[in-house]
């Protein structure tokens, strides 16, 4: 419900939401100028978790930098690492074996489901419902178990290597993944029953925070924020990379532009990811996971390379400027939430604080990914 009252600018006060606030999912600060419960103006202050990823890119060699990407976005770490290895492989001209590409896609999609599950729980928690978080995290633990068995870590994976992977998947993983898919589909049905069908939930999201297509374009929004506003944009489809053209999946698009549309998009994305995992397991070819020929020292030729991938949070771009040495000359990380969050200042004007915070939840924020 947008503002039905006339806002009087002289009766305002400043409310400081964050850096420590339960709704901000980390250390984000929003300076809100409030008129009662209504937001007159908002200014987002970020940078509380700026961890110098771009500076480290210039200091560390290419393999040393592999671990940074997973710490940039810890929920959907695989997607970001995928972008990084792809751009370096592109620059250095490294061939990747097909099996490795399939395993990468499976891992990225599993990670996407895990990330969306966490978002789902945290989003409902923003709205005041606690139990879905517990259910979602329980399902997420299954994914983490599977991935931990292969990658060795629960959260901040360092699994992809230039040209391939660190470790091959085994039969245990495949059977676990095959068991997981029907289980997850059942859980999704349960979530729809528990949350999507809830009348309070519907009323809180329907019509809240409409984002127009034009606004998305001016801010460069991606992921569910764009797809909830009727923009059919998914890097996996628009600029196919890796083995994604081999998979048959849909991109959910909703035209309502509100928070509920963004919620629906993400819930459907989980189903689509499950489809991709299923197909990936079926099509998984045999073969090596590392290329036979691989340069010992990675030194991409001088030049400017760009790679976009679709991560759990949207279109992640990575720009590599190489000068032919063993460290990048410049490494720019274009994070999707950065653009999505930027929308917030303009979009939340005139909203009530609780709607604004629900809207913030629907953006799926991971703060270290904004601050980098």
């Amino acid at each position, binding site marked *: 419900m947008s503002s039905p009252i006339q806002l009087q600018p002289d009766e305002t006060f400043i409310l400081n939401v964050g850096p420590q606030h339960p709704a901000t999912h980390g250390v984000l600060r929003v300076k809100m100028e409030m008129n009662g419960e209504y937001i007159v103006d908002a200014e987002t202050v970020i*940078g509380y978790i700026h961890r110098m990823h771009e500076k480290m890119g210039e200091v560390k060699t290419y393999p040393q930098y592999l671990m940074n990407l997973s710490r940039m976005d810890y929920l959907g770490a695989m997607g970001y690492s995928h972008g990084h290895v792809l751009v370096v492989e592109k620059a250095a001209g490294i061939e990747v074996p097909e099996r490795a590409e399939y395993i990468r896609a499976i891992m990225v999609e599993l990670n996407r489901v895990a990330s969306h599950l966490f978002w789902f729980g945290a989003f409902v928690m923003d709205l005041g419902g606690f139990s879905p978080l517990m259910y979602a995290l329980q399902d997420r633990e299954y994914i983490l178990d599977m991935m931990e068995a292969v990658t060795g870590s629960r959260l901040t994976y360092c699994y992809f290597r230039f040209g391939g992977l660190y470790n091959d998947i085994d039969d245990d993983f495949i059977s676990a993944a095959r068991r997981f898919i029907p289980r997850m589909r059942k859980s999704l049905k349960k979530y729809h029953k528990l949350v999507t069908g809830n009348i309070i939930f519907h009323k809180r999201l329907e019509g809240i925070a409409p984002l127009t297509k034009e606004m998305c374009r001016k801010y460069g929004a991606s992921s569910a924020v764009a797809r909830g506003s009727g*923009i059919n944009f998914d890097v996996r489809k628009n600029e196919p990379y890796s083995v994604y053209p081999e998979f048959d999946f849909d991109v959910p698009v909703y035209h309502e532009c509100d928070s509920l549309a963004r919620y629906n998009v993400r819930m459907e994305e989980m189903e689509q990811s499950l489809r991709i995992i299923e197909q990936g397991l079926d099509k998984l070819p045999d073969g090596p996971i590392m290329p036979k020929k691989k340069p010992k020292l990675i030194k991409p030729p001088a030049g400017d390379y760009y790679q976009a991938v679709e991560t759990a949070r949207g279109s992640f771009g990575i720009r590599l400027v190489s000068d032919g040495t063993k460290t990048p000359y410049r490494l720019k990380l274009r994070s999707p939430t950065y653009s999505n969050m930027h929308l917030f200042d303009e979009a939340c004007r005139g909203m009530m604080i609780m709607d604004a915070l629900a809207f913030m939840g629907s953006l799926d924020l991971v703060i270290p990914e904004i601050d980098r």
Partner: protein
Amino acid sequence: MILEKTKSGLLKMFPEPEPVETAVEETSEEDEKKNASKEPRKNGVVERDYSVHGYHLDAQVSPEQLLEAVAILDDLEFFIESITGVDWIKEDQLEVVYDFSRYDFDTCRVVIRTRINRAAPVVPTITGLYAGANWHERETHEFFGIKFEGHPHLIPLLLPEDADFHPLLKDFKA
């Protein structure tokens, strides 16, 4: 299609088009090597091999032409991906790189670059055209010290509000 349209639109800014380099793979890479080592590339529009570089059009413009170039992309409904800087310390220049892309399936990634002197790093802001450039420009400002003329709120974004250092400059020492 959109690629040609954009290209012709951007080429109009250069009334005497220089010999347009089309992307023949090996030569262009060698060119770049030369460029990196010798002299900065001249302003103009270059078509790049997407499978190698990840973008289609690479336009280098002068700071005065920047708004014009961005307006062309805005008319063609590009969305802004990011803005960033590169410090070419050997050439005593700073480069500002603007990335644009499209939402539809007519894929076309456009990179617009502009180079300025390190001593007087000033470029016009594009926040008037793309509201979303606001944070990107603030970030570039704090990391490289590039001043965006006309920017409404040019204070550090990621660093503390009173930070006066520019960490991504190559001569930065903590």
